[in-house]
């Protein structure tokens, strides 16, 4: 641990010292994770410890980033529930691990401390069968109700399917709050989705309405649960890259970067400057693309179709650049562990410059049409507003959080790639409503373009596009065909994959929709032992039914686009 982190964690250590001996044990020494302080916590003290860590002014771990499970069948306490905490004011991270045995897999829920834990804990329950006591609604979340067993346990066959029959389809039982005496309407329950004209993707929203007002609702997800985490356990480290594309498919390049950086960190590989430069530029273009979809679909749901075409034209042009870089438009897989897939095309800079000319007028046009548009303002200002404090408690990150007045951006708070070498700002707005979420994205598009412009002005760095390490990157075709040694390395890398040393790490990247984190555990076998994606829209969407209480159905639809919930990432 670097000395400054040790100093800042002293108060946390002091809190831990207040608990009975042996109930909070820092994981240290060989084999312990080195990326952030890690404590092994007995479940009895978990909730009190969490509350103390959150409330103590010296620690203020106010953001629960993630909860995930890991299965170690050979251990006596087989399941481990892993909590990643973040302190917004102090910029510190902390990992808590709570081990439990199979016969007695119960852990107190931390929903009373952080509301954002709700869906995270349900996921751990669904995937591992760990029961969270006092959880408000502990049932399966990703798999269907006809499913048996817990899929991410190591002894579960990855291809074992269960068929869902009509009688097992989940029907929420909404509890009506006490009726208003002046209401002249009968209460009605409406099911929207998972395939519905107004729904994006595959979400199901069941709402009880009083006239037009939503009085109670429930969200059901999992209709696109593609088992990405289980699949990555059955593939080599390189083979996981295409799976990461299909998380947030609106900005797949950022997912590639996030995953590759995590593995590079475990490997201790230094990425060559040219790859870092290109990764930063392409990530920012992907961010622009993603914001275009989010805003475009948000606007199209309020009837503003023109902007959708404008935004998609931006995307088409950026697809052209991505196609030149890697041959694919949407699911690019353009990163490799240690660098990029291939060298950049000779006209890369010229193409980027053309895009910088092309995109701003389209963005200007949308702003002219929308910013002061009466219909849009009526439909969005004050709708689904959330305060910064609540948003943090619900584990929000990204543009949606920044629209609520919290200036947390991984690119600023924990700079990576080239973000600390360029001049840019984090746009923050304070309304927390649908309008501000739209506006923050528009401002971020301009910041992204500015970052790209500065990097282009700096010029493309010379040198290789991928690290020169035969244990990580494939040798060139020429070397392969002419040198015995290179051919053997090529064979070993293709057949056995990259040999990542045992260890675990969590690494965060600013995805288009918030902090995209990869928590990976390696056992040195050539495949990820456990790979968990901290999907930014997962906790954001868990807030949805709370957010929509008191609003109308049409507001709910208009809000959904602005939250930018991408099913592939949400349900993985």
């Amino acid at each position, binding site marked *: 641990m670097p000395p400054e982190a040790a100093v800042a964690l002293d108060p946390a250590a002091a809190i831990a010292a207040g608990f009975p001996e042996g109930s909070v044990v820092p994981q240290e020494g060989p084999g312990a994770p080195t990326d952030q302080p890690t404590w092994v916590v007995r479940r009895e003290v978990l909730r009190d410890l969490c509350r103390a860590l959150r409330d103590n002014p010296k620690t203020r771990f106010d953001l629960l980033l993630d909860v995930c499970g890991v299965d170690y069948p050979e251990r006596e306490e087989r399941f481990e529930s892993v909590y990643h905490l973040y302190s917004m004011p102090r910029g510190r991270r902390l990992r808590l691990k709570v081990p439990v045995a199979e016969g007695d897999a119960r852990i107190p829920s931390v929903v009373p401390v952080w509301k954002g834990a709700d869906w995270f804990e349900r996921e751990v329950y669904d995937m591992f069968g760990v029961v969270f006591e006092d959880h408000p609604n502990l049932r399966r979340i990703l798999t269907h109700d006809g499913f048996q067993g817990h899929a991410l346990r190591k002894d579960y066959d990855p291809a074992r399917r*269960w068929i869902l029959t009509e009688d097992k389809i989940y029907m929420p039982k909404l509890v009506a709050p006490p009726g208003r005496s002046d209401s002249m309407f009968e209460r009605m329950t409406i099911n929207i989705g998972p*395939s519905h004209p107004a729904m994006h993707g595959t979400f199901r929203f069941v709402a009880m309405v009083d006239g037009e007002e939503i009085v109670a609702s429930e969200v059901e997800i999992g209709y696109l649960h593609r088992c990405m985490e289980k699949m990555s356990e059955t593939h080599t480290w390189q083979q996981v890259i295409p799976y990461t*594309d299909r998380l947030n498919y609106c900005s797949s390049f950022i997912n590639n970067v996030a995953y590759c950086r995590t593995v590079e960190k475990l490997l201790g590989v230094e990425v060559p400057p040219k790859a870092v430069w290109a990764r930063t530029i392409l990530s920012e273009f992907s961010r622009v693309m993603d914001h275009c979809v989010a805003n475009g679909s948000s606007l199209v749901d309020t009837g503003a179709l023109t902007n959708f075409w404008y935004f998609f034209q931006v995307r088409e042009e950026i697809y052209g650049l991505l196609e030149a870089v890697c041959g694919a438009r949407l699911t690019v897989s353009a990163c490799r562990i240690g660098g990029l897939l291939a060298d950049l095309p000779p006209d890369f800079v010229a193409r980027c410059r053309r895009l910088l000319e092309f995109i701003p007028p389209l963005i200007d046009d949308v702003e002219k049409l929308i910013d002061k548009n009466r219909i849009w303002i009526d439909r969005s200002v004050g709708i689904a507003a959330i305060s910064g404090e609540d948003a943090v408690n619900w584990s929000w990150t990204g543009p949606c959080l920044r629209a609520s007045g919290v200036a947390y951006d991984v690119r600023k708070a924990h700079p990576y790639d080239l973000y600390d070498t360029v001049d840019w700002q984090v746009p923050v707005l304070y309304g927390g409503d649908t309008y501000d979420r739209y506006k923050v994205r528009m401002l971020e598009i301009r910041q992204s373009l500015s970052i790209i412009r500065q990097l282009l002005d700096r010029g493309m760095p010379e040198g290789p596009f991928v690290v020169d390490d035969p244990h990580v990157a494939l040798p060139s075709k020429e070397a392969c065909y002419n040198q015995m040694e290179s051919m053997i390395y090529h064979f070993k890398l293709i057949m056995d994959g990259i040999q990542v040393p045992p260890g675990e790490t969590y690494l965060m990247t600013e995805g288009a929709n918030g902090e995209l984190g990869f928590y990976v555990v390696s056992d040195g076998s050539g495949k990820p032992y456990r790979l968990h994606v901290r999907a930014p829209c997962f906790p954001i969407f868990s807030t949805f039914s709370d957010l929509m209480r008191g609003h109308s159905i049409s507001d709910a639809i208009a809000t959904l686009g602005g939250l930018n919930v991408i099913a592939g990432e949400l349900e993985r």
Partner: protein
Amino acid sequence: MEVQGESWLTTKLEPFVDWAQKNSFWPLPFGTACCAIEFMGTVSSHYDMSRFGYEVVRFSPRQSDLMIVAGTITDKMAPVLKRIYDQMPDPKWVVSMGACACSGGFYRAYHVMQGIDEIIPVDIYVPGCPPSPEGLMYGILQIKEKIDRERKASRRGGKRKGEHAA
């Protein structure tokens, strides 16, 4: 069909209906994942599927005759897909867009249907992950040919879309 003079033409009813049908599909996008984004790209201004008469995208199964299944179908989604398909009026066609809808793609997993033809009949399979808009358009245009072929087959006593054994 033959054009006679300036203002009228002679034809038989069947070819006329076929002609109308194959040039004015009302597609229903059953979009779930990445492929749906490429479907949006296909109907957007750059590729513009309306050039072929297919621009009336309907989100209600009762108003559409071409289902484009774009994206992975999971076991949880399967009953929904089946029900939506059943709600479409005959005659109807199904395009399976992308590797996942065709075969489950690289998700050989515990929650993913290994191809939608496990539960509904498919007319055209479009490969790709996701298919490019050109690929999707090519696939949809194949349906035109399929309608022609079905007409020829029906002259020889074959069964057509939407016809049930008497």
